[in-house]
């Protein structure tokens, strides 16, 4: 089982779109795929038309009062399951803080379903927190969507240092540009100038396309409702770059 996390300290950069579309593509290839929506805003859960509710909330999951399997929901797509968000996840830092090995609990919970899935995606809330530390320890790859702006580069720098300073095995960091508009000079300059020594930067650039915004209206991954669209092709190219062997 390989774990990929869509993560960035900043919000609104395309984490959920990335996790949802890549998870769909993984499942479409026949890989047993799970997406865990860790963000209490529950955007990924909404996109899959699943109710954002976990019995017993984040507390029951983190404390293992309820097995993680009991909370899993099938999506409308073959091979793709969802562990839904719950509004109580806003307190997940506190729940984790009360556990033993508080920075590794999410990874331990995922080990319980390792026999059922080939790929797990984590859709993370935007923050640097105990949840983030858990995500670092649980993941093999951090997928970091970046909007091509100067501040994004600074955030990316902070993130790579955060990963470098963490103890234990570290995930591979793969950044890529998201919501890019090549008509904007600044976007072009940032894409061309990003330092490539702090982490891997994917070749694929996901443009700002209205069809990606339509995901919220269609409540489905882009390659499911617009399989021949430019956005679907972009996500396919990105998946080809980051897909585990």
């Amino acid at each position, binding site marked *: 089982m390989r774990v990929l996390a869509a993560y960035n300290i900043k919000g609104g950069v395309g984490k959920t779109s990335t996790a949802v579309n890549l998870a769909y593509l993984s499942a*479409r290839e026949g890989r047993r795929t799970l997406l865990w929506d860790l963000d209490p805003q529950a955007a990924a859960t909404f996109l899959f038309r*699943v109710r954002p509710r976990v019995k017993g909330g984040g507390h029951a999951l983190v404390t293992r009062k309820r097995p993680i399997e009991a909370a899993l*929901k099938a999506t409308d797509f073959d091979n793709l399951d969802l562990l839904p968000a719950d509004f109580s996840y806003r307190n997940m830092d506190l729940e984790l803080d009360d556990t033993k090995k508080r920075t590794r609990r999410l990874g331990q919970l995922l080990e319980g379903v390792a026999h059922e899935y080939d790929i797990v995606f984590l859709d993370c809330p935007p923050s640097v927190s105990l949840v983030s530390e858990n995500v670092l320890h649980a993941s093999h790859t951090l997928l970091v969507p970046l909007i091509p702006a100067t501040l994004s580069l600074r955030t990316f720098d902070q993130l790579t240092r955060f990963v470098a300073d963490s103890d234990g095995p570290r995930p591979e960091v793969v950044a890529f540009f998201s919501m890019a508009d090549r008509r904007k000079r600044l976007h072009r300059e940032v894409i061309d100038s990003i330092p490539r020594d702090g982490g891997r930067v994917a070749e694929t650039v996901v443009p700002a396309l209205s069809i990606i915004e339509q995901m919220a209206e269609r409540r489905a991954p882009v390659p499911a409702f617009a399989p021949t669209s430019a956005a679907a092709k972009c996500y396919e190219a990105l998946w080809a770059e980051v897909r585990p062997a």
Partner: protein
Amino acid sequence: MTSAPRALQSADGGPLDLAAVEGALSADFTVVTGPARAVRQARLDTFDRRLDEAGLTLEHRSSASGEELVLVRPDSAPPLLSPATDLRSPAFAHDLPDGALRAVVSPVIGIRALMAVTDEKRRVRRVEVHDQDGKTVARLDLDEPVAATSTQPAEVRVLSLRGYDDAARRTTRLLSGIGLRPPEAEDRGPADVPSPEDMAPAAAATVLLAGALNGYLGAMRENLPGLLDDVDTEFLHDFRVAVRRTRSTLKLGRPALPEVMRSRWEPAFKWLGDLTTPMRDLDVYQLDLPTMSGWLVAAAPGDLEPFVAHLQRRRSAERRTLVRGLRSARYAALVADWERALTDLADTSSDQTPDQSSEVLTAGALAGTSISRAFRRVARDGGAVTADSPSEDLHSLRKRCKELRYALEVFTPVIDKPARKSAVGDLKALQDVLGRFQDSEVQGAALREFAEEMVSDGTSAGAVLAMGELVGRLDAEQDRARQDFESAFARFVGPATRVRMQRLGGAG
């Protein structure tokens, strides 16, 4: 992901009424019915139904929208799906798409090929069952045969989605309201066909022998098409097992069988066994190659490529000889005459009942004397083996062990079952050691022969050197097997086995 589907059929197994299905579900759900798709459904399994035995159902479904493999598992685990393009039958495990489905199927089928055991065109309509949020909470497949002659009736499969079991249960209840029911349990055949376990020790020995020999003839016939088509190596293996069992049964049955069995049929089946041996030896090499490659230390696995090519050429040539032999008039006459001979034997047997004549040898008596003689020979020959005995003595002992093993198998219906099971276990441990010894020697000798052929063909030194490494490893394995022999034999002829053999009539 979905759980194992639940099938429902109309009471008479007739066509399904889509409007009635939609109407029944509309009380609680919104339903979205897709177009009817023509789907070709091929159920895949090995010839000996390994998937079925393991409770697995693998289907290759092809339609205009693509091809997929669907593996349904015995528990409530969700079916595994995998896209499949250009999958041809027969297919080996390594031909399946990489992923979870292959990981489950591969250890079950091993080296056997998957074949289409049924292949039918169906008309399938997918019905999505939605809740008020538009989320799919269950799925139905309305699956109907295209041909009126189909033996598979129309059915609705209710697919439960993980986390939505209540919706699937509700769906099933609503469908039962319009008369759909789970299909009757499959009829597995008439119960009054006597199984070998039913035979009394007092039955005439020829009845038991005729039944066993008929079974082996059936196995030869069943495996012949796959053998001729070279579907996988196990067709030849199982064919040879049937021939070997026939030969052993003829030998064990000599006291009860007519003289013609010895004079005509023993040599006939020896010819058949010999015809199949060269090809089987080469199959064993091909199957063992991956393991052998792993033994290499100085050489690289790639160095063996000329050897692999040489083996394939030899195998092609041997296969032509084998196929010619099995398609010859001699083979056809052998099978036809053998079937008549077995019919005659069965007719004679039915006239013989121990109640009518005390002269008739019973199955129980023949079992006792055969097992007794076979065990005595193993004990005698094995006891004479020393550290300096030539290899031939161990090879000869291996044959004696096989005779005992076949005696324990042939007479299974009339001997003590628990004692037999334990005795086979004891014997198997000894046979494993002797098998390692002989296989190492035979393979080493053959490797030397192949190397000489390849050198005369101008093969590179690298391949021959790599083969030399394999010979060294086989020699060492043979030495280890010889060292293990003494303790394995001592265990086999120990008091525990003797007690068991006494119960089987064999320690006399």
